[in-house]
Every structure is written in structure tokens, then in C-alpha cells.
């Protein structure tokens, strides 16, 4: 079928479909789905691509609940593909170019999202979700990382709020207060601790450029800085960036921070296991993916708290990572996929399910006041009530602005930053160098 006939076909079926869809499936979130669904009710097989097995589980269960719910329009079967996050986008674009075989829904990792901002890919393939989220728009915590030209193309899976994880037992043993107020104080304590016991209170990554810069970005956002502003201008060349990089470099030099290739790999596991690493600034998902997976035997010994502040200002939280879930537009299953996404991502039931399956934090502000979440106690973290920490964090979390040239910046920043962390370059120089390299390489 040629493109033109296919589009006309979809438009026609869309008209009919739109009419049939008038019966609202989810009262609360109702509203038109737009687009052109060919499948409007009954059995539907949704093709879902994600890099994350827990997301797969969540969607399978959510689809089952939605199919079983009285009055549900669709009877869902899920066909899931799990692959590397980069590979998924490569495949989606190739299939898109070929005109067939694209998924119905896809999870696009935040660092990969810039790829769909290029060359109009997002606009050509993905459904504009503005009307879908309209009823809860003001309740959404994060939309900027998955927006293109002000339109939303992906729903956040996890708010990824960063907290400070720490070993309560080791802190007690070494007389480290659990409520140190500022990073600067903690750095001093960390330096002394390292001299005494060889332990560290945090990590910096020295592996590939993405890992290196991620740790920096996390602290930079907390400090109130950032890579880009809302209109896409580079804002890296700032005193905050220099300050944060300087803080990290000094931390590595003093032993307060431990240099490791990445926060998931074997070396990190080893450092956790042998008690060399007893604290780390990490996003919410680190509890499940980092700690529980790698050091299950340390159950009960870890706690978390909000981040110490930088003396110079900033937030008490940060964020790192995330995955935007998108629906492909103009496909027969677009409407069904949209319903499933809404159920899983915009309702309390869905968000709770996600939280249970993978520790994903709610993406709706209101749920941070919800008693089911507030009452949740985490066994691994010694029965700690997580939302005592997450709720304030959610209210003071920085915004990350996405940019099509994010990858160029990461490549430009990685090298100089690594040299700085190794003590071979001054922070200010490194930032200058990265900015210059970015400007010369970004093209267009």
C-alpha cells in the first residue's frame, strides 16, 4: 500500500472509529483520543517495546486488569519486545522508514529521546499526547524531557527523584550524623572517613561519556544549573557548572567520592559488597536496580534521605534518568494503545502497580499526598517510609530541558570532565573546552 492510500485509508477508518469511541472507557480520564483507530473495541494485540523487564510486567498486568474491568472496550493481548534502549529507537526509525512493523507503544529512554527530535521523526511517528493528558496536565510532574516544540510525545515512567542512600550501620559506627546539612560539610566528613577507613560516601563515573556526565548532571541540576534552557540555548557555561565539577574533582581527590566506571556494573557491586561504598546520590530506581539486585544481603542496613544542599543554593532533590512512553500514531491500534497507556500512566491504580513492580515513583503530583503511597514502608530500607523523603523531594525537584543536540554535548563534555576528575585539568577550563567543542560540533 502506498503512503498516500494508507493515510487516506487510516483517515477514513479514523472517522468511523472516532464515532464508535464516543463511549468513554475511563470516565475520569475520558476525552477524545484523536488519531485514527481501526480497532475500536474487542480483541487487540498491542506491540510494546521497552528496554525494561519490570515495565513489561507492569503493562501485562495493567492490560489484564483493563481487559477484565467491566465496560472495558478492549481485550488486550500484549506482544512485548525487550531490547537495548538505543536499539529500540534504531529499529523503530528503520521500520518507520520502511512503512511497516513499528510497535504500537515504545518506551524511549530520556538520553535517547533526542534522536526522535531530529528530522521530524517524533512528529511523523508518535502521537501528540497533549489531548490525552489534558485532564491531568497540571498534575504531571515532568513533561519537558519528552516534549518537542512544546508538544508532549512521551509520558514519564518514573520521576526518578534523586536521594542520598546511605548505610545506617556504617554511619553509626563512624559517628557520621545522618542529617548533615550541606554537601560541603559532608565532603569534609567523607575526606576524614576515607583517610581513616578507606571508605567513600559517593561515586563519580569514569566509564563512557554518558555515565561520566550523568553523575555531573545530577548534581548540576540540584545546584540549580543545567545543560540547556527551555528554548534550547546552551546554559552549561555557568558558575554553577564550574562549582559542581570542582566539588566532584575535590571529592575524588580526597577519597570522599569513589571513581567507578558506572553505577550498575560489577565494580560498583564489589564496592558495595565489601563496604567500601557506604553512601551514594542516586535516583529512586537505584533502590531496586542497584542495591536490591546487587547486594540483597545488605537488606535493612540501607536508608535514604533528601540530598544535603549546596551552600550556594539549589534544590533538595534532583533527578536522573527516566523513560518516556509513547504511542505510535495513525496505526490501527493507536486508540487501544492510548487507552492502555492512560490506564497505566495516568491513574492511581496504574501508578501504584508500577511502583510495586519496579519502584517507579508516581508521576502525578497529587499522588505524593496519597495515603497508599505515604503509608508504604520499604523493607529493604529497614521499613523506612519512602514518601517522607520523596514527597518533599517532588516539591523541590529541578527541571531538565531536553535538546536534540544532547548527545553532542555529552561527547564534548565527557573527555574534559574525566580529565578534571583525574586532577589533570581545572574545572573552569574543562567547562570552557566542552562548550567550545559543542559549539563547533553541533552542526546546523
Amino acid at each position, binding site marked *: 500500500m502506498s503512503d498516500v492510500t494508507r493515510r487516506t485509508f487510516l483517515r477514513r477508518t479514523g472517522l468511523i472509529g472516532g464515532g464508535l469511541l464516543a463511549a468513554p472507557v475511563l470516565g475520569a480520564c475520558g476525552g477524545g483520543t484523536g488519531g485514527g483507530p481501526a480497532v475500536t473495541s474487542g480483541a487487540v494485540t498491542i506491540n510494546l517495546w521497552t528496554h525494561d523487564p519490570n515495565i513489561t510486567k507492569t503493562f501485562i498486568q495493567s492490560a489484564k486488569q483493563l481487559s477484565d474491568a467491566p465496560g472495558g472496550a478492549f481485550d488486550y493481548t500484549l506482544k512485548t519486545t525487550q531490547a537495548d534502549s538505543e536499539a529500540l529507537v534504531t529499529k523503530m526509525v*528503520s521500520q518507520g522508514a520502511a512503512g511497516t512493523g513499528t510497535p504500537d507503544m515504545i518506551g524511549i529512554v530520556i538520553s535517547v529521546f533526542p*534522536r526522535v527530535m531530529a528530522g521530524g521523526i517524533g512528529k511523523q511517528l508518535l502521537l501528540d499526547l497533549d489531548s490525552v493528558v489534558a485532564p491531568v496536565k497540571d498534575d504531571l510532574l515532568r513533561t519537558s524531557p519528552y516534549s518537542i516544540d512544546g508538544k508532549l510525545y512521551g509520558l514519564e515512567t518514573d520521576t526518578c527523584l534523586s536521594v542520598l542512600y546511605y548505610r545506617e550501620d556504617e554511619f553509626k559506627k563512624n559517628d557520621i550524623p545522618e542529617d548533615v546539612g550541606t554537601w560541603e560539610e559532608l565532603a569534609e566528613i567523607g575526606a576524614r572517613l576515607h583517610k581513616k577507613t578507606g571508605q567513600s560516601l559517593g561515586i563519580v563515573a569514569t566509564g563512557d*561519556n554518558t555515565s561520566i556526565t550523568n553523575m555531573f548532571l545530577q548534581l548540576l541540576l540540584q545546584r540549580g544549573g543545567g545543560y540547556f534552557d527551555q528554548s534550547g540555548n546552551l546554559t552549561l557555561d555557568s558558575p554553577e557548572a564550574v562549582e559542581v565539577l570542582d566539588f566532584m574533582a575535590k571529592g575524588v581527590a580526597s577519597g570522599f567520592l569513589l571513581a*567507578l566506571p558506572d553505577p550498575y*556494573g*560489577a565494580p560498583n557491586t564489589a564496592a558495595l559488597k565489601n563496604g567500601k561504598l557506604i553512601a551514594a546520590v542516586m535516583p529512586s530506581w537505584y533502590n531496586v536496580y542497584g542495591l536490591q539486585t546487587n547486594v540483597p544481603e545488605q537488606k535493612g542496613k540501607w536508608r535514604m534521605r533528601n540530598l544535603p544542599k549546596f551552600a550556594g543554593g539549589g534544590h533538595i532533590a534532583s533527578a536522573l534518568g527516566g523513560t518516556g512512553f509513547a504511542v505510535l500514531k495513525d496505526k490501527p491500534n493507536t486508540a487501544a494503545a492510548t487507552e492502555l497507556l492512560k490506564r497505566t500512566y495516568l491513574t492511581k491504580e496504574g501508578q501504584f502497580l508500577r511502583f510495586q513492580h519496579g519502584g517507579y515513583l508516581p508521576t502525578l503530583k497529587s499522588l505524593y499526598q496519597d495515603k497508599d503511597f505515604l503509608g508504604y514502608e520499604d523493607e529493604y530500607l529497614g521499613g523506612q517510609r519512602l514518601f517522607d523523603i520523596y514527597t518533599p523531594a517532588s516539591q523541590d525537584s529541578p527541571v531538565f530541558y531536553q535538546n536534540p543536540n544532547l548527545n553532542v554535548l555529552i*561527547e564534548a563534555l565527557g*573527555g574534559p570532565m574525566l580529565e578534571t576528575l583525574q586532577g589533570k585539568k581545572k574545572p573552569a577550563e574543562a567547562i570552557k573546552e566542552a562548550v567550545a567543542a559543542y559549539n563547533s*560540533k553541533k*552542526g546546523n
Partner: protein
Amino acid sequence: MLSVARRRALAPYAFISPFYLLYALFLIVPIGIGGYLSLTEWAGLGTPLWVGLDNYTRLFGDASFLTAIVNTLLYVLFSVCVVVPAALLIAQALNARGLRGRDFFRLTFFIPVVLSPIIIALLFTLFYDREYGLFNAALRGFFGWGGIDWLGEPSWAKLSVMLLVLWRWTGYLTIFFLAGLKNIPRELYEAAAIDGAGRVHTFFNVTLPMLKPVTAFVAVTVMVGTAQILEEPMLLTKGGPGEATLSVAMFIYREAFTRQQLGYAAAAGVVMFVIVFLIGRTANAVLGVGREK
């Protein structure tokens, strides 16, 4: 009915046609499309936008591309100057008279090539780790010190990639030299011995000249192969730290599949093809590999 002579004249065409059919379809046509794409701006969807030679002019002003070319040349240089001689040396040792277990050794050295590069690269990532890797552990065990930041220090990272190349390919190349050595007529050595030539002298005056065709084959294979190096740097370091290990093939991959600049990547591919082609041709002309009579 065709005459015998006619049939014999047509036979070679019939024999090469299945190959060339597949070859044209699955290589030449895509190359043509790639050549066209190099003159366009294309993110992978929609209609490519014709930009003429813009991609090429941009390419030659792109510091990353130049870095990638320099790195790749270093890899090629390393393979030719280190991997090839190492293979020759090992072959020489394997060829020692009266050596027992030659087949065992030959077999063992070949194993790295048999395994998937993915698996090897994943293993080496673990070995190269500064704190917990096998290499530093071994250094600490033997020398009491092992603080090399294999993948984090730009020059060490380059070397780490090279060492992986050495590990993966030396055994493979060894078997070519070994076959070459076995093929040297015994009389030549006997003649040299009668002339009273020493071992070193014999090596340079008998062995090396006789190995020239093998060496040429190995050298060209290695040059062309290393010039396309992708998996090693991609899986070990993703081209980092910074761009210290970025190769041309990786540059192409990165532009195409992490930045969606397929036209630009295609242009880089064309340039790479030209460079590799020229290297290969020059080497062939000098060394005489695969040449027709």
C-alpha cells in the same frame, strides 16, 4: 545446441553469475543508495533533502571525524607493526623442530577468533576494571602494584583497545605464517647452513624473503580489517574517554544511530571507503596480493 567451445566460453559467466547476482543485490545496490544518501540530509524518515557536497565539507571541518581518522590509523599502525610481527614470532616458535603438541598450541591460539566479539568485549570490560579487574589484580599479585586505569586514561584506553586486537587476532594470523613457514623448501635452510649462516642471518635472508607473499597477505588483511574496527572500541569504551578510542566505523555508527544523521554518516562512509581502498590498493601494489598475472 551450443558447441563445446561456445559452452566453455560461456561457462565462467554462468559460474560467477550466482555470486554476482547476490553480490549486486545485497552489496552494490545498497552502496549506491548509500552514495546517494551521502549527498542528502536525512534523519531516517521522509524524503532525503538534497544538499550536494555539504556533508563532505562539514566532515573535513569536524574535529571528531579527524580524531576518528587519527585513532583508526593508530590502530592500523599497531596491527601492522605489533600484531603482525608477534604472529610471525609465535609462528616461528611453533615451527621449532621437534616441538610437541604443535596442534594443541595452534588450536589454542586460534580460539579467540572463534568466539563472538560481543562476548569477548564483555569479558574484557570486566578484566580491565581498575579496582576489581583481573589485569590489575594480576599486576598487584606479581608486582605489588596495579593501579592502571585501563579504560579511563585516554592513552591507556587506546592501548587497551589495541591489546584486545592483539589478543583476538594474533593467533589467527599465526596460522598463516605457520603455513608459510612449513612451505619453505628445506633445501634453502640446508644451503644456508652449509654457507655457515647463523640463525639470525638465516631468518633475515631465507625465512623473511620466502615469507613475503604470506606477510603481504596478512598485512593487507590486517590493514583493511583494522581500518574498519568497530566492535572493540564500541563495546569496551563506547569510543571514550572523550573521543580517545573513537574509530571511523564507530563515528559512522554514532552519527547514524545515535544522532540520526544518516546522510552525514553515509558521507563519512564514502570517505572511509576511499581511504581504505587507497590503503589496500597501495599495499597491494607494493606487496603484490591478489593481483592477476
